């Protein structure tokens, strides 16, 4: 063969193998996922007419085993489109006709979506899974009586500190204004959360629509912003782990993961109160596959399925059935790195961490971000002015 022919053949082989590598090995036998997990049967199995389920969810927020089990057990395809912010999801849903069956709004955006008619009411008769939840996460102000939403995961925004690099560990939001922290902080790029925290530190209502209060917050925030090295609502832990910053404001999951990398990183619930948030399942108004929707909600919220969240995502778990199932359970499973462990051990790791298992007093002192309607552009204007003056 000519030399150029050999090269061409080699190149074709490389190309082919690389493309084939993109298609991985498929799952094992009947109702066993590709990672070896044996899928439990649904407690309330229904026959479905739908052939598929369209999810529109947060990036990397559903355990692969959870989705695979549902597909295996019910034999339908789950299509998963993802978004990285509530605003993206809201913009897409409010602009037009989409055919998603389920979305995952965070608490503050639920009311605007309801007002716009974007969500449909839950048919509680079809939701036996409702009993699985801890009542502390139900019937909250943003959806009284859970007419439209089911809890998914919850968490907090609080102070994160690398105790090796910082001498005086801050105890409240107000401490972050100190000069010693200048140029060493990462903050969330979230106008509502940061302005809310500032208002809280001034003793004002963090969801105020009062322009005077907001002016005061702006005044105070203007002394903090120049001290912030970067804003990041995507992956603030990176800057912490890399040592670009030493402390700042972040949320539950990020703090937990950062802690795993750098043990000296601690999560501090501020005295004035941390931000409480909750992500929820909601059904868009035009969902085409309702029977699959209810099947999904009931199946994935079973204790013997939802415990996966304890392992895969370090957030606060509102599903009591899952917690009870995992506690003291000797059943073998792989931990998030693939090392063998037991469900009980996974539960213990979750329970013993004050990051994921938010202490009761922190919850009592905490506040939620609520919708502020007309005042939202004012918050955004303040935010832009403070950041834009660089």
């Amino acid at each position, binding site marked *: 063969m000519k030399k150029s022919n050999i090269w061409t053949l080699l190149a074709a082989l490389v190309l082919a193998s690389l493309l084939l590598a993109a298609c991985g090995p498929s799952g094992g036998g009947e109702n066993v996922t590709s990672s070896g997990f044996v899928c439990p049967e649904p407690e309330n199995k229904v026959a479905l007419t739908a052939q598929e389920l369209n999810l529109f969810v947060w990036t990397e927020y559903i355990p692969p085993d959870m989705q695979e089990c549902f597909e295996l057990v019910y034999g339908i395809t789950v299509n998963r489109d993802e978004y990285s912010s509530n605003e993206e999801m809201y913009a897409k849903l409010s602009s037009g006709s989409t055919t998603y069956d389920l979305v995952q709004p965070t608490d503050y955006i639920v009311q605007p979506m309801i007002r*716009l008619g974007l969500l449909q009411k839950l048919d509680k008769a079809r939701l036996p899974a409702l009993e699985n939840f801890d009542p502390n996460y139900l019937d909250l102000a943003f959806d009284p009586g859970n007419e439209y939403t089911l809890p998914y995961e919850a968490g907090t925004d609080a102070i994160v500190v690398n105790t090796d690099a910082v001498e005086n560990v801050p105890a409240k939001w107000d401490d972050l204004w100190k000069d010693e922290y200048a140029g060493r902080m990462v903050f969330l790029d979230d106008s509502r959360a940061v302005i809310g925290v500032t208002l809280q530190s001034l003793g004002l209502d963090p969801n105020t629509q009062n322009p005077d209060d907001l002016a005061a917050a702006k005044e105070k925030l203007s002394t903090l912003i120049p001290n912030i090295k970067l*804003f990041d609502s995507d992956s603030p832990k990176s800057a912490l782990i890399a040592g670009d910053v030493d402390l700042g404001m972040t949320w539950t999951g990020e703090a937990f993961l950062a802690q795993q990398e750098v043990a000296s990183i601690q999560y501090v619930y501020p005295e004035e109160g941390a931000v409480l948030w909750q992500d929820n399942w909601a059904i868009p108004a035009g969902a085409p596959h309702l029977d699959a929707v209810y099947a999904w909600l009931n199946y994935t919220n079973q204790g013997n399925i939802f415990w996966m969240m304890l392992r895969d995502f370090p957030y606060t778990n509102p599903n009591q059935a899952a917690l009870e199932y995992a506690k003291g359970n000797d059943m073998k499973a792989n931990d998030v790195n693939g090392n063998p462990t037991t469900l009980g051990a996974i539960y213990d790791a979750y329970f013993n961490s004050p990051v994921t298992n938010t202490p009761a007093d922190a919850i009592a002192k905490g506040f939620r971000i609520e919708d502020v309607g007309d005042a939202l552009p004012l918050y955004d204007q303040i935010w832009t002015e403070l950041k834009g003056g*660089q």
Partner: protein
Amino acid sequence: MLKRLRENKSAQGALLVSPTMMFMVGLLIIPLVLTLVISFGRRDPDGQVIYDFTLDNYRRLTGFTTDCASGAAFCFNDLYLQILWRSLSLAFRSTLVVILLAYPLAYYIARAQPRRRNTLLFLVLIPLWTNFVIRIYAWIMILRTQGVLNGLVGAILTPVLPLLSGALNPLLASMHLPLVATTFTPLEILYTPTAVLIGMVYEFLPFMILPIFTSLEKIDSSLYEAAADLGANAFRTFLRVTLPLSMPGVVAGTILVFIPVMGTFVVSDILGGKQYILIGNLIQRQFLDARDPTFGSAASLILMVLTLVVTFFYTRRFGFGEEIVPA
């Protein structure tokens, strides 16, 4: 009928361009008109548009408001003009740096052996075919405090600096000149405006290389011989022959770089730590976080008008470059 079509040149032209016009009108002009209409509207508490006719959004952009904190009747907030100016300034500086970096490379490729030219061009294009955002993230890994750049510079300077400072500092001190640092402190580039500039230059560099290459390649080599015959040295030839003839490429490249830099928000978000607010960031925020499509639409239209104006004056001065991609 076919015979009449053959003879009617105007109809032929219209027919050929009709599929394009369907797409342009349907998917571009209609949204544009919609944007215009929305920019004159008002925002309801949920961020939806109330169709009205008000110039409030545009007035807000100019910075003049009647509702002032100080209680005066009329005051001026230069926030948005600052953002506009910052965007323009960044676009101009990025374009300038891109031209300075692109020209030597384009020159090298234009004067390469014909067989190697294609390979070199592909080498320039290949980074473009990796994902835009991933390339920016790679720069984070390079520019951060413990990143690749500081690692390399640190590795070199850490042994060198103590010796250098020990040798030079006494002399410098006596002459009251700034001293050489005794130890290496990492460069803080990431999350500063410099990082944003580097990111913009990096992303759009290939778009300048290709047009400049195209126009350089077209230059007839006999022109160089003629210049040499007339006694011009290399530098003079470059100044009087090469540079003027390559201008169409520079112009085309400038348009391809300047316009996107004005509208990009990803680079300033990621490399600037979300502190460097450009007009692209402002617009994006309005549609998403602020849920104010009316203001966002107004800002978008101003951006488009500004871009058109700058492009218009630029092409008037330098002529319209046809070499967008080697053809």
